[in-house]
């Protein structure tokens, strides 16, 4: 699908909220999936409680809400593979990369090798990343 009139901008989706407690996380993911059709240069950042969105083993049976965490695994199919997790936020919460879902994508330029989508970044790297963006959508 060709959208957006040929302009490519750098879009950053900033996720700072935990899932389930409010709908921000779920509806952010919906924007990311729809936005993928516009073929922009998309990055996702998970900061503060946003890192909880990527926690593995989410199970919502007991709260009667849809578990949307499996959908993050589909991001690779949507060519979204630049997922940045703020290292400070993760560590402050007693978590490490092993506690997060293993999100991957297939690299078309490397014989469809499966590669990790998540990068852990420190404050300086994250600040530098933010400074490269044209559009910052906050959730």
């Amino acid at each position, binding site marked *: 699908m060709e959208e957006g009139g040929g302009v490519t901008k750098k879009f950053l989706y900033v996720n700072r909220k935990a899932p389930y407690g409010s709908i921000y996380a779920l509806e952010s993911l919906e924007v990311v999936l729809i936005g993928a059709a516009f073929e922009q240069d998309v990055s996702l950042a998970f900061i*503060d409680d946003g890192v909880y969105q990527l926690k593995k083993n989410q199970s919502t049976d007991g709260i009667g809400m849809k578990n949307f965490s499996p959908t993050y695994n589909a991001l690779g199919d949507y060519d979204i593979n630049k997922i940045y997790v703020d290292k400070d936020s993760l560590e402050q919460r007693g978590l490490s990369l092993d506690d997060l879902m293993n999100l991957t994508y297939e690299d078309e330029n490397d014989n469809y090798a499966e590669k990790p989508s998540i990068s852990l970044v420190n404050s300086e790297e*994250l600040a*530098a990343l*933010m400074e490269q963006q044209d559009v910052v959508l906050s959730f």
Partner: protein
Amino acid sequence: MTLHIVNKSPFETNSLETCLRLARSGHCVLLFEDGVYGASKGTRFEALLTEAMQNCKIHVLLPDFEARGMKADNLIAGIETVDYLGFVDLVTASERVQSWL
């Protein structure tokens, strides 16, 4: 230059702290809505703000500050006030706006 806009009281969430951690030298920060509480003198965040002002310019949306019973002389020294027109100018003078919800 990035304009960071913070609408949360620092006592409620860590939006302001994370914002200041990730803001780079030369960036601007605007405190508005409940975020204005971070701009008042004598809170436990005053030192954080004062330190941040060595690298960043900090503004407060005066209508929001005044609505909450505070006046310009309650501001931490060095924080500048703007009205909505000034808010617009800050946006257009920046390259991008990052909202710290």
